[in-house]
């Protein structure tokens, strides 16, 4: 596989005792975290890894320790702090150019995040379930009317979350080519720094214009809310509000879309598990199945990046103030202490304590929405298309090894 090449960072001039991060997955198994990551977890106390730029942050792999650190106020998510472990040159170049709540610490983080929490409350999201079901049904109608094979990513996995987040934000879906193009640049690793900044700016510029329009003519959506309640009052600048909008737009697209497509690959490889979703109709069981798929796939596979702001004792070592920290949720979600036989996809297990959405104050804001979207998708797709099958071998699929979010670039299917 060519993907492994992008995983390897050349450090010929700096010989090092540390393992390089990220590590490559085993050839042949697209779902399991890299074997070297597991060795790191099983190999004893917390240790350091080496990143592309030669820096050596700590790698945290145990579930309890990842949770403890992500919930620790002595850890910062601010990439402009010295010692922060940047995932690549593009991310480093972007650090500090654009501050949204995701890269801020409390109290600034809490103040900004609360401005956009309302639409993601459980009851509000539950009220959207019928509309989400309708979108799913419509997309599948269109897909089924086409002659196969069809790319499930383009026909279904991406348009669904895209339509939903556009509706919530008040962004015209007709522009999806434009913002999908730019979001793609933002979630790819090792992109050209100039290109990353340009994509980020293009999105923010676009949303800033849209916000200005909404100020004059508000609708019932998040951008209108930000425009009329925050920008008009001077609480936020139009730029800051646009930055928040672009964060939600990007996050809403890439995560759910990849869960749908990668989840489908995983289920097709586990027909007994797929049958549970196809034949069952208990909403509780479907909800549990979604949690297990979230745990098993943990698509945010680069790890959550932090920097210690004070000395922290954990797992027999002392992280010093200024040390970078990578919290590897993917391997933590395979921790046998918490999830017996962790490498087995078992839709009937209780996986609620997974940390696929992260942990601590930065835990995913959109998770209630993601859950409902995935519940509707997984309980509809295989029932409506019981003969769904890959139109190509699994080994032919292009997996997103070079992404921040894991998934497949295309998913050709037939039925």
């Amino acid at each position, binding site marked *: 596989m060519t993907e492994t090449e992008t995983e390897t960072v050349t450090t010929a001039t700096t010989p090092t005792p540390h393992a390089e991060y990220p590590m490559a997955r085993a050839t042949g198994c697209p779902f399991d975290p890299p074997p070297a990551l597991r060795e790191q977890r099983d190999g004893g106390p917390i240790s350091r890894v080496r990143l592309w730029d030669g820096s050596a942050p700590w790698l945290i792999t145990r579930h309890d320790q990842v949770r403890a650190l992500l919930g620790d106020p002595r850890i910062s998510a601010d990439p402009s702090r010295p010692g922060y472990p940047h995932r690549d040159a593009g991310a480093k170049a972007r650090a500090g150019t654009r501050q949204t709540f995701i890269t801020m610490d409390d109290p600034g983080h809490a103040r900004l*995040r*609360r401005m956009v929490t*309302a639409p993601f*409350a*459980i009851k509000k*999201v539950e009220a959207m379930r019928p509309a989400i079901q309708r979108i799913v049904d419509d997309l599948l109608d269109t897909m089924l009317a086409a002659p196969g094979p069809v790319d499930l990513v383009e026909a279904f996995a991406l348009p669904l979350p895209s339509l939903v987040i556009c509706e919530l934000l008040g962004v015209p879906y007709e522009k999806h080519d434009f913002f999908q193009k730019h979001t793609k640049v933002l979630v790819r690793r090792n992109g050209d720094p100039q290109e990353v900044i340009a994509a980020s700016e293009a999105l923010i510029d676009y949303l800033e214009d849209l916000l200005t329009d909404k100020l004059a003519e508000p609708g019932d959506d998040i951008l209108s809310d930000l425009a009329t309640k925050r920008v008009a009052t001077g609480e936020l600048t139009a730029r800051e509000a646009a930055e928040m909008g672009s964060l939600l737009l990007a996050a809403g697209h890439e995560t759910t879309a990849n869960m749908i497509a990668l989840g489908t690959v995983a289920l097709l490889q586990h027909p007994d598990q797929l049958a549970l979703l196809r034949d069952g109709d208990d909403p509780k069981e479907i909800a549990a199945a979604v949690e297990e798929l979230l745990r098993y796939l943990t698509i945010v596979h680069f790890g959550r990046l932090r920097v210690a702001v004070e000395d922290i004792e954990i797992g027999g070592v002392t992280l010093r103030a200024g040390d970078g920290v990578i919290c590897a949720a993917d391997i933590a979600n395979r921790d046998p202490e918490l999830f017996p036989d962790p490498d087995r996809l078992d839709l009937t297990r209780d996986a609620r304590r997974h940390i696929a959405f*992260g942990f601590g104050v*930065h835990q*995913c804001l959109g998770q*209630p929405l993601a859950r409902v979207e995935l519940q509707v998708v997984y309980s509809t797709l295989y029932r409506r298309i019981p003969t769904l099958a890959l139109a190509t071998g699994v080994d032919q699929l292009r997996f997103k090894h070079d992404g921040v979010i894991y998934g497949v670039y295309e998913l050709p299917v037939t039925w």
Partner: protein
Amino acid sequence: MRVKVDQPKCVASGQCVLAAPAVFDQDDDGIVQVLVDRPEAVHHEDVRESVAVCPAAAIWLEEE
């Protein structure tokens, strides 16, 4: 069992409501609200799950 919450800490993830809907709700901004602070025994396990999954340590219990 007595349920306590610290609303300023809450990040509106909704995890508590999913785990123990009989005990927790959210206000208009998604911030946690306690419906019954002394839940009946049948809900105790769900409440403990809420405490375990709350990402912000905004919920805790006082056993009495």
